[in-house]
């Protein structure tokens, strides 16, 4: 639904419409929203950094995140589960790219197939996160409670769990909204909304959001599982 007159031959002056970036307004909005959201996460992660570097000691992620679903109690599989989670999320970004590409080719079937895979990936990631939260909670971790020891064996402050649950929770909320958006996009595709409009720009905008959420996870993952 291009709401503008096409640029005239008078190319020297602004012809109204889609310039300066030759994108429609919704995409401009999405990019600015993502910048805004990046500042939200940036503020969280900088707060995490500030507090972490003024705290004596921090738990060793290899000792905290070592469990695996259905594995026997006491299994030592450091970071295996979260690596699978991360892999799932990144693969869902790949299927999102394929969906956007299919949209550009006006290939409805391809869009539907890849959107379904993306949604499955998102739900799988959320399920993994739910399991991990539940598991940590059973181990006694929650906001304000930290059962883990520092890497050097001293008692650890609650900052670790406070930030872990707040930031991964906030990220999980973003993944959840992404899945909801993707489901709406899938329904709109099935209802031929985008075929009628003649373009799949909405899929592209949802894709931008989805990639952003994945990108944020890379930082969250680094901060809590690697460092």
């Amino acid at each position, binding site marked *: 639904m291009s709401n503008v007159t096409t640029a005239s031959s008078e190319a020297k002056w602004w012809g109204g419409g889609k310039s300066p970036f030759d994108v429609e307004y919704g995409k401009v909005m999405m990019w600015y929203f993502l910048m805004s959201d990046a500042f939200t996460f940036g503020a969280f992660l900088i707060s995490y950094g500030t507090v972490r570097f003024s705290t004596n000691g921090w738990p060793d992620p290899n000792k905290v995140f070592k469990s695996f679903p259905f594995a026997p109690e006491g299994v030592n599989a450091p970071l295996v589960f979260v690596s699978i989670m991360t892999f799932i999320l990144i693969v869902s970004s790949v299927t999102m790219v394929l969906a956007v590409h299919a949209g550009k080719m006006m290939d409805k079937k391809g869009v539907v197939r890849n959107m379904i895979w993306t949604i499955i990936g998102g739900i799988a990631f959320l399920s993994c996160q739910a399991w991990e939260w539940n598991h940590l909670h059973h181990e006694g971790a929650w906001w304000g409670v930290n059962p883990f020891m520092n890497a050097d064996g001293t008692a650890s402050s*609650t900052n670790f769990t*406070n930030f872990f649950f707040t930031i991964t929770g906030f990220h999980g909320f973003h993944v959840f909204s992404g899945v909801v958006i993707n489901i709406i996009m899938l329904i709109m595709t099935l209802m031929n909304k985008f075929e009628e409009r003649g373009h799949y720009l909405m899929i592209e905008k949802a894709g931008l959001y989805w990639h952003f959420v994945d990108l944020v996870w890379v930082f969250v993952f680094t901060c809590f599982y690697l460092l």
Partner: protein
Amino acid sequence: MSHEATLHGHELHEHHDTFLTKYVFSQDHKMIAKQFLITGMVWAVLGGLMSVLFRLQLGYPDASFPWLESILGKWAKGGQITPEAYYALVTTHGTVLVFFVLTAGLSGTFANFLIPLQVGARDMASPFMNMLSYWFFLAASVVMLSSMFVETGPFSGGWTAYPPLSALGDASPGSKTGMDLWIIAMALFVVSSLLGGLNYIATILNMRTKGMSMTRLPLTIWALFFTAVLGVLSFPVLLSGLILLIFDRNFGTSFYLSDIFVNGVGALSNEGGSAILYQHLFWFLGHPEVYIILLPAMGMVSEIMSINSRKPIFGYMAMLGSLFAIAALAFLVWAHHMFVTGLNPFLGSIFVLLTLLIAVPSAIKVFNWLTTLWRGNIRFTPAMLFAIGFVSLFISGGLTGIWLGNAALDIHLHDTYFVIAHFHIVMGVASMFGMFAGVYHWFPKMYGRYLNNSLGYIHFWVTMAGAYLIFWPMHYEGLAGMPRRYFDFSIWESFKQFAELNRFISTVSMIVFAVQILFLINFFYSIFKGRKVTTTNPWEANTLEWTTPINPGHGNWPGEIPEVHRWAYDYGKDGKDFIPQDVPVGADESSH
């Protein structure tokens, strides 16, 4: 389906609009602007009234006013405002004036009203999001208002809501439910600001009419553009800070709390949090916020000055560059609010440098406003007077900013009345003047009638004189060390000398408040009974909003959107008083 067709559809349907779709759930940017304006005015009256009440306490600390108790009940036992009520009043006054009046009321009104009209668009990029932006603002307003009626009162720890006062529910009466409601209101406000800001940016970038290149935009639009960018990038950081605050308050975390000792409780069980962290997050919003408030006023003042001087704005590109410089520097100076928090002195010196750098673009702007006036054929309309008043206040308040931006001087001046004088003049009153200038100038476009000029002149001169009479003496009080946020100074020997001065300030503030009521009467009277506008271009201005009908409908232009051929500042050019932007450039003529 083309946009054109949609909008003609809109116009056809206009006659069937019910009261609800036309005035309440309107998606017309002009109506949304008026909604923002009226809501902002309600808040301005409430916030102003609060300042009158606490000025009453500061001016007459020993007096008793029985009528106060009949209005405020337990908050004014025995006719005197209680300390708790005093702190609640100053806190709410600050929050309301900064966010609800000078952010939503100012840029909400004029960004909505002017952007589509001046860039040549039928409406905002997303009218629906625009409506949501207002409704989130109204929701925030309702929550903030309701916080004043809870039993323990509204939040009373200062508009900056520093922890631990804001993080510990038992710190003060206002730290209980009042603080929760404050956080919710502010979170809703952030959403409103985000929805509005995205729309303003997208509209300015994408919806301009043919020929309206970025450097032909009126300076109002540029100022509103940078305002929107600042808001979109700084409010989310406040949101993060508030989310962490919610967790500290309700979920036993220690983001901002550590094992501090509380009288009667002992050491808190919290560990490792940093109250200074909140200050960083808050001021990362808080400082850009100053420019979110100031830039729209600057843009409107530039436009109004050029029109009423009958001269092109002096140094358009320099104005644009300085707007950009101010917007960029706004993000790099936040810690100058924190010089006394134990900030590393070396870091402090960097923030001093960056802060003082803002003087450069500010001086460029002042210079350009003065040179725009220079030898102009000035029309002293009330809008023009307020614009000139803005420049005066901006200079006076800006100069004291150089003192406060200096870490060494700030140690003495921090948290004194000097700071109050500084920021009220440079950002509070100055932006208010910008807002008044905008209302007087665009009122004919908003309502098809004029405001009464005589009342406007009285309004201006009393407010202008009053602003200086109120805030100028505060500089001396601050230099003498009189701290802000104190309930009663009468027990300090060193501040007894100011008792009479305080009474004087309080008296003037009541007179100034009374004159604002005069403005309100003028405003509402003129909406219904004011002199009717008879020409589409009453100010003989160049910008596109004056090419619309006197009372434009939804869609703004009944026919085609005019094409733009020149910049907005062709005043006094080639012997012509003014040449509107939609007039084609003649063969023997050059234009921007």
